[in-house]
């Protein structure tokens, strides 16, 4: 088990960090957030087409770079640190993982290279009205009509679902749950951008009315759902670790320079010990991340447990750290113009995106065999 990055991986981190410092500074993040697009196409091109980071877990023969989850997590960490406005999580993580897990040759051929190059943006739609993964089966049904499959109903909480070229949806087919690929411009597909707690993480509700879809064959649909969810947990964990590192840095810098009662606030134990607790949470989360990413690449049998661990542990931890960051900034951290709140909102959203805390804990308990 390897829990530290090697020099190439550290190099990758620096490259991405520099790119984002230049092209996704907070001012740019806010422009995109205030604009209506939900992402920055130019930045997305740089990340995907130019640097080839969207296909890190896709083999070279299929259009990717054949690196791995450890590397993808390095990228996700940096994207999380910067709150970079790109549909990487939706497309380069969730959608790519779904296509890979589905083991449907047609789909792979049609989608994978585009997803890996970033020309195609993918999104995954497993959730219905309550947001729980898999609950789309209650609100989306598939039927065979006029020689093809069509979908009827709706899904919600689809990350980057408003801009996706391809949506991979989990629906109830006559024989049970199944996965379907739907083109973003398919007939009868309506998309509504949701209002979100986190203004930097766009989500959409999709309405299907006899919308033509390709049914994925190959792997067991429920197993695919689980596999994608595990990888989503690891990807979200990576974002969280990046966020934690950034808010800790911000908070330490601020409390070093902010003077109250004649000395820097960071010299007060109430503040200093708060920073120490943030650091402990961050360091442990990073350790969990490295393990889960390593498991995804090198010990797939350990991944279900590692992913459940990562999700149950780092979801609440990163929100606590983000909330502490706002707190330790005092009044200024509560203003719109300071960036602390963006992390607070992202962390809360991240914590809930795969379902509420008790579901995450129960998933871990199950996998532990409690």
């Amino acid at each position, binding site marked *: 088990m390897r829990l530290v990055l090697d020099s190439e991986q550290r190099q990758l981190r620096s490259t991405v960090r520099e790119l984002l410092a230049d092209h996704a500074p907070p001012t740019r993040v806010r422009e995109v957030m205030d604009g209506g697009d939900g992402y920055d196409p130019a930045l997305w091109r740089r990340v995907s087409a130019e640097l080839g980071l969207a296909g890190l877990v896709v083999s070279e023969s299929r259009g990717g770079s054949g690196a791995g989850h450890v590397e993808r997590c390095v990228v996700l960490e940096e994207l999380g640190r910067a709150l970079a406005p790109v549909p990487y999580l939706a497309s380069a993580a969730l959608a790519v993982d779904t296509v890979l897990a589905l083991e449907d040759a047609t789909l792979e051929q049609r989608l994978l290279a585009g997803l890996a190059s970033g020309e195609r943006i993918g999104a995954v739609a497993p*959730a219905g009205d*309550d*947001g*729980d993964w898999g609950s789309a089966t209650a609100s989306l049904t598939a039927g065979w009509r006029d020689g093809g499959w069509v979908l009827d109903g709706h899904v*919600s*909480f689809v990350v980057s679902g408003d801009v996706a070229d391809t949506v991979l949806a989990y629906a109830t087919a006559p024989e049970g749950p199944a996965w379907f690929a739907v083109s973003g411009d398919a007939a009868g597909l309506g998309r*509504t*951008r*949701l*209002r*979100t*707690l*986190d203004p930097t993480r766009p*989500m959409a*509700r999709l309405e299907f009315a006899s919308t033509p879809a390709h049914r994925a064959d190959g792997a067991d649909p429920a197993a695919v759902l689980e596999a994608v969810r595990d990888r989503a947990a690891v990807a979200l964990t990576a974002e969280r670790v990046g966020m934690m590192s950034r808010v800790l840095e911000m908070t330490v810098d*601020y409390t070093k*320079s*902010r*003077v*109250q*009662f*004649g*000395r820097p*606030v960071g010299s*007060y134990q*109430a*503040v200093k010990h708060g920073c120490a607790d943030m650091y402990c949470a961050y360091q442990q989360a990073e350790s969990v991340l490295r393990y889960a990413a390593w498991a995804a690449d090198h010990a797939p049998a350990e991944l279900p447990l590692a992913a459940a661990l990562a999700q149950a542990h780092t979801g609440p931890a990163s929100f606590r750290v983000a*909330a502490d960051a*706002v*707190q330790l900034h*005092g*009044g*200024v*951290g*509560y*203003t*719109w*113009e300071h960036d*602390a*709140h963006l992390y*607070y*909102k992202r962390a*809360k*959203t991240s*914590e*809930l*995106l795969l*379902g*509420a*805390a*008790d*579901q995450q804990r129960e998933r871990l308990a199950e996998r532990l065999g409690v």
Partner: protein
Amino acid sequence: MDVEDGPVDTFRARVRQWLADNAPEPTVNRSPEEQLAAAKRFQAALYDAGFAGITWPVEFGGQGLTAAEQQVFNDEAADYDLPTDPFMIGMGMCGPTLVDLGTTEQKTRYLRPLLRGERIWCQLFSEPGAGSDVASLQTRAVGDGSDWVVNGQKVWTSGAQQADFGALLARTDPDVPKHQGLTMFIVDMHAPGVSVRPLRDMTGRAPFNEVYFDDVRLPADAVLGEVDGGWAAAVTMLGHERVSIGGSVRRRHDPLAYTNLAELARRTGRADDPVVRGELAELYAAERALTLFNSRLRQEADSGTPPGARGSVAKLGGAELLWRAVRVAGLIAGARTAAWDPADEAGEELAVAINATPASSIAGGTNQIQRGIIGDRVLGLPKEPQVDRDVPFRELRVGTQPRA
């Protein structure tokens, strides 16, 4: 629910009846101006009915009753969403400080219009460089004949955009240690040189303002309390603030209140889940324990023991309660907390409440400051070494900014 005898019971019956007859329906689609006008009308009606300034002296327009009646009113009012927000600072902080420290002229001039809802007040203490350390503020008031001339910037001023008057804390002597050279003034917010800019907070709303003073002239009788005695006046007002924040009634519509989260759990089918039930029970217990503590403080006040610094327990407890509620809300609503359909007008309520929660442990004195107050003033623990205690203000480094 409460079993009481005598005059308080009669008072309760009167309040209940009056509220049933007079409490306005919540309004959603009115303009801010219309809302303010309605709030003023309601406050005037409260005054006329004898429910404004319940514990304030009769001679200045109050009712001369006890905290018990105030509690009864608060309890009964909790069932309504009364439009009293614009008057909270005036009723909870500035007014009580005027009662404590104002001259008879000041009380005569300001209290009745405040109670009748004719004048709105704000509090002008915090500055960008002076948050927890209020006494390090840099806004200057320089004597000019019998007048004062004020220059500087305030921040986090709730309601400044609507306010007619403000309680301003300014530095009148920078050559003495920071606590000794402050004076409190009553400032006319419509005076030349006062400008107000809304300050957007992390909810995206602007309940706060920045207030700039540019050569604002104040007359001699604007001083509240003593010249250079402003710190004592500020401590008085901050004490009222903590009690006011800590003891403030949970709003019926507060989406983070136990009742509403329990209702949300029922509506979303989560109320049978043992984990959710346990968390709701703990939330209720924390909320109820705090309410009972506040009631006890009021009963003690009636028996002659003022709450003093124990108001900080209420303030701190209220903030901790909200943070617990944020966790419970996420547990119940999951991803629905984080995203909602634009057509769903109530959808954002929970998100806004979650985004407003950090204010509870920052505004009005951070949790850290409250714990220090409890440690120092309630428990009598030894103070931290105070490095700036005896240093003339001029020589101090403050905030993160260059000195004014």
